[in-house]
């Protein structure tokens, strides 16, 4: 049984990790926790659905279209709103992202209605790939894990081995110095938001088949992703991945062995305890201001 639990944990954890990565990319670049990420993912997932059903596009094409849409959505959000904030402080940015979340939520309900739809991917949740006595691995499970790993690898390569990644890291560490070196920091920030939105969109596409497609579908993954990011340390990409996996593990183990109902509460409780001991998360450094 424990093997099945671990599989479930990794799957759930991968999705949380994706949301956490999306959150961390933006936080590293701008110190903003982007609460609208869930709804951006949700809207992107609807776009995939429309491209698949109404436009009848093959899956990969629909996915490509969605990613393009998500990138533009994220970029525009930064360009139109975040950049225009006058006296940016944390609370102000949180409110902007919450506001955008409400706008997207209302938009989705308005345009597509709040009834749930079924969303299916080429790899189904019931087709079993691998079965042993102790666990079952479905196509969807495998796909989720592989896709998550692929994204993490892709991001790692992007950040460590491309000029864009270098520019992103530079802008995040010292905006002025980056500008003096010719890096268009505003555009880089927009691109960061765009990339984050793309990662979120993929998370959404993975969530919809096992959950549902409706305007509220990403609320839980967003919160869990955020919690996982905080647990792992918002500015550390490997940290948030581990945070996501840990969260998936804690939830599923607790849910199975102790109580299904309280598993989310326990997850949050554990995060708070961790934060007490390490106020900036497991893998992030905590800086005390020098006077």
């Amino acid at each position, binding site marked *: 049984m424990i093997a099945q639990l671990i599989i479930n944990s990794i799957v759930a954890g991968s999705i949380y990790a994706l949301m956490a990565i999306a959150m961390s990319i933006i936080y590293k670049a701008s110190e903003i926790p982007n609460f609208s990420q869930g709804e951006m993912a949700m809207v992107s997932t609807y776009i995939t659905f429309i491209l698949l059903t109404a436009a009848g596009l093959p899956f990969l094409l629909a996915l490509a279209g969605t990613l393009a849409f998500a990138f533009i959505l994220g970029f525009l959000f930064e360009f139109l709103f975040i950049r225009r904030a006058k006296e940016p402080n944390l609370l102000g*940015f949180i409110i902007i992202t919450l506001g955008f979340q*409400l706008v997207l939520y209302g938009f989705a309900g*308005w345009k597509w209605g709040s009834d749930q739809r079924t969303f299916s991917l080429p790899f189904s949740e019931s087709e079993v790939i691998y079965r042993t006595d102790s666990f079952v691995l479905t196509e969807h499970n495998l796909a989720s894990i592989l896709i998550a790993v692929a994204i993490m690898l892709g991001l790692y390569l992007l950040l460590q081995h491309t000029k864009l990644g270098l520019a992103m890291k530079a802008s995040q560490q010292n905006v002025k110095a980056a500008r003096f070196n010719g890096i268009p920091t505003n555009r880089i920030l927009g691109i960061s938001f765009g990339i984050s939105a793309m990662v979120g969109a993929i998370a959404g596409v993975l969530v919809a088949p096992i959950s549902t497609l409706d305007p509220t579908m990403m609320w839980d993954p967003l919160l869990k992703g955020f919690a996982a990011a905080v647990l792992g340390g918002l500015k550390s990409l490997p940290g948030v991945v581990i945070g996501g996996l840990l969260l998936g593990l804690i939830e599923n183990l607790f849910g199975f062995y102790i109580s299904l109902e309280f598993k989310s509460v326990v997850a949050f409780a554990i995060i708070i305890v961790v934060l007490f001991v390490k106020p900036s998360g497991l893998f992030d450094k905590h800086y005390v201001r020098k006077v």
Partner: protein
Amino acid sequence: MKLKKQYFEDIKLFKTTAGLVWSIAFILFLFILPFILKTYYLSIINLMALNVIVALGLNILVGNTGQISLGHGGFVAIGAYTAAFLLQLGVPFLVTLLIAGIIAAIIGGLLGIPSLRLEGPYLAIATLGFGLAVMVIIGRMDVFGGRMGMSVPKIDLSWTGLKYDESLYYVFIIITIIMTIFAQNIIKSRIGRAFQAVRDSDIAASVTGINLARYKTLSFAISAFYAGIAGCLWALYLQFVNPGTFSFMMSVLFLATVVLGGLGSVTGSILGGIAMTYLSLQADNIIDFPIIGSIIQSFSETFMNPSGIANIKWVLTGFTLIAVILFEPLGLNGVWLRIKRYWKLWPFY
């Protein structure tokens, strides 16, 4: 221009006679409303009062002490459920009200403990988790009616000689006025100053003798107290409580109310509470607005699913929030201050 003659004038409730006169006029206006308006409109004002009370408390925490809470719905829920429970047992109203507030305050103080170590998004997550945890825990406890919730009995207001709805309205208004005065006094006192010191520089605050732990905890407790009081009244307003009522979305809207109204100002909390209630209730009626209404109507019919028009309130609320941060970070209170300044300098601008 009125010159102050005594230091006491700085802490008096109304600094100018104009302020005093307008406030009394406004209060009298509120008091005669039941004789003019239908009960439906009175209940809208009741909801505004509830939002104002929560905003007053949350503003002290967020605006004055510089903390953050994404879980204030949880405190309102604690107040509401405590009230429902006690009222069903027959505990008198005022006692219930106070107990609801105090229990919320105690739990609020507990939530202050993580705030001693956490900041910014980390604190946000901790409070968010708290809010969720409260709802999940309450929702599972049978003594609170589990998923079905509990009904809230009416309180005995027959001694006023008025209809129940009208008497309840007066109760709400009077309590809101009292809570407003308290909030104003807290902010103007040494406690309020200490809160602002914690917000502006906690290092300097501690070096000047302010016990950070005590004041951060106190700020959480006070804001939770306000939420608890509002919760008790909320239970009476809805006449029913269930776990779904006090959600994460509600906590978000509370925070939005404070920012919309104006951080750190009592006027802001009042304006924010009124505006946010109006937005969430009446936004659907935007179709009836003269020009904008028909534009939105046709937009809705061509591009959208017209039956989902009710969702426009989210869109409008969201854009309002974004607009506030982008254009007037001090919120409605900031707009009001601009108007006053403009007015005062006329015609010399």
